[in-house]
């Protein structure tokens, strides 16, 4: 057991190292000089070399990389090439907003997917199952930002129940915060919920086929009780995998939704940085997102160990 955890931790650390190198390499090695990009096409050679000198861009790449990673480890991602502002505090603020949005969406997605996915699997031959299944197919096909636009049209424009956009910190005005959170969280959550529902359905269907479920029924459990007592835990392994992947998708999907609802999250920061050609900010935000995804993967790996005893030990 301890060995398995150590293994996963090692994988996480190596992944962090490699992906930071990837992000760095990607931004630096691609043709295009960050300084020149930051200053735009009209900049003079002198301006460019001054900026390069200021931010140490003329140093060897390895040295640049190490100082960047060193900064990250100390939670100091550096200074913007364009605004000259400290990036760290900005990311911290924005990350908070994005995490709230993602957590709310995930909650909605899971709350939808677990009951409906299971129901769809159990009633897969009945009309109710087919209707739910068709609905989820449509849900999967709608891009989250489109769902956002539609929700705005209906609830903000037509019905005027909820604000169309904006963000208020929860501490400032909890009521307003919730009102503004609802639509973006729903647009992400509904779509991800539809995707997750399909995975729950197929995981439960697979489990329904298992021999041990037949054993459970032979013991005298009704099909539903057999599923609840013996099936769901076993169906959880594939579902947890997808949940992990979905959290990653959500983090990135939030980028788009933040644009739709004008929310000052990490995504807005990233897109603004792209617009301002502020490459160091792009690099930092991308890295933060990648780290988040890797940590989620790590947690998923640990969850496997908790769910499936077969992974903890080797067969005798």
């Amino acid at each position, binding site marked *: 057991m301890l060995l398995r955890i150590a293994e996963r931790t090692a994988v996480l650390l190596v992944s962090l190292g490699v992906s930071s190198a990837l992000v760095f390499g990607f931004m630096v090695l691609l043709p295009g000089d960050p300084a020149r990009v930051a200053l735009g096409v009209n900049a003079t050679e002198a301006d460019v070399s001054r900026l390069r000198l200021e931010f140490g861009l003329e140093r060897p790449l390895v040295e640049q990389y190490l100082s960047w990673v060193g900064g990250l480890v100390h939670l100091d991602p550096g200074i913007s090439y364009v605004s000259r502002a400290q990036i760290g505090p900005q990311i911290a603020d924005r990350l908070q907003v994005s995490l709230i949005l993602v957590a709310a969406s995930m909650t909605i997605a899971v709350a939808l997917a677990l009951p409906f996915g299971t129901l769809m699997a159990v009633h897969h*031959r009945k009309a109710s199952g087919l209707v739910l299944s068709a609905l989820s197919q449509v849900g999967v096909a709608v891009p989250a930002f489109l769902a956002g636009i539609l929700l705005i049209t209906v609830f903000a424009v037509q019905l005027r129940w909820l604000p169309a956009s904006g963000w208020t910190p929860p501490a400032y005005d909890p009521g307003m915060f919730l009102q503004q959170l609802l639509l973006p969280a729903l647009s992400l959550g509904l779509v991800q919920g539809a995707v997750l529902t399909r995975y729950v359905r197929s995981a439960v269907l697979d489990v329904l086929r*298992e*021999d*041990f479920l*037949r*054993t*459970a*029924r*032979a*013991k*005298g*459990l*009704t*099909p539903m*009780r057999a599923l609840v*007592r*013996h099936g769901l*835990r*076993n169906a959880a392994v594939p579902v947890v995998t997808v949940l992990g992947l979905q959290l990653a998708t959500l983090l990135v999907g939030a980028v788009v939704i933040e644009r739709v609802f004008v929310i000052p999250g990490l995504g807005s920061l990233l897109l603004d940085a792209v617009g301002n050609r502020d490459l160091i900010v792009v690099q930092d935000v991308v890295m933060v997102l990648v780290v988040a995804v890797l940590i989620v993967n790590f947690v998923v790996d640990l969850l496997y160990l908790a*769910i*499936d*005893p*077969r992974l903890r*030990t080797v*067969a*005798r």
Partner: protein
Amino acid sequence: MTAAPEHTAYPVGGMPPTRTPADTPPPADVARVRDLAVTVGHKPLLIDVDLTVRRGERVGLIGESGSGKSLTALAIMGLLPEDLAPTGSVVVTGQGPGGIARTTSVLEAGEHGLAAMRGRDVAMVFQEPMTALNPTMRVGAQVAEVMTIHRTVADRGAAARRAVELLDKVGLPDAAEAARAYPHQLSGGQRQRVVVAMALANDPALLICDEPTTALDVTVQALVLDLIVRGVEARDAGLLFITHDLAVVASVCERVLVMYGGRVVEAGPVLDVFTRPRHRYTRGLIGASDLDLSRPEGGLYTIQGSVPAAGRFPAGCVFRNRCTHATVECEAVPPWVGSGPEEGFACAHPVVHHEGGGS
């Protein structure tokens, strides 16, 4: 991967069942199947299956792949896949709560009625011990569960204690520790013992075993077979034992039904059927499985052709496309000849046995 050694078979007979057989009326039919037919779409999988198992009786059901023997077992358990349509009648009589006889019409009963019957009046052991147990649950808890479901023990604690006791009786070494193991930590033979313990936990009136030793090594098979026989004997339960192995069925059962193509083609006491088979298929099967017997021209006796896919057996006598004695007469379903569903055969050109057997 070496399997952990199988340990001594404990005398299951030494353990008194919770209710003694004397409490119940004398030999009654625990399972009574009449005119059972099962179809999927328009393909017949089982036709006119008649079968009776009484208390204390060990009945074998033999046949090759596609013969319908597993389907028959699942029909008795009420576990047929939902898109299979069974007709006919299947009646199971067990002890029910409080020792009062309970009769279940399996094909008509609802899910709750069936659930009350399964694991209590009739229990089942499946072929694959590797997949029959829940991989995420300790085996002791899985054995205890079958008793808490049917409330045959006072409480959870009693169920857990009795589970350990049962695991000990089926010969798991250090039962208390074994109860805490997950299935993947046990060998195939040990897992099958757990399944047997689970099946016997509520002293069912009927135990159905579907190829319970096919996936096991031969030395383990011998012990598990013994375990099953002792288990049903101690409880005076009926046993329906399904296998493709004639020698196994002869070691375990008193009575046997031979199935082919979804029909029962011959039935009778084991000794009679195996020494004086009447149906041409039974005769062929016995010849082909006896590796000590050679044809005069050399080589083993064979049956020509191969077993058709399920639902694709010929109309009339299901064996006629492989039978050397088939005539136009066989295009009609041959009538059942014999004293009843327990003894007889359905063959238009049966084997004639002269004095002293042989043919």
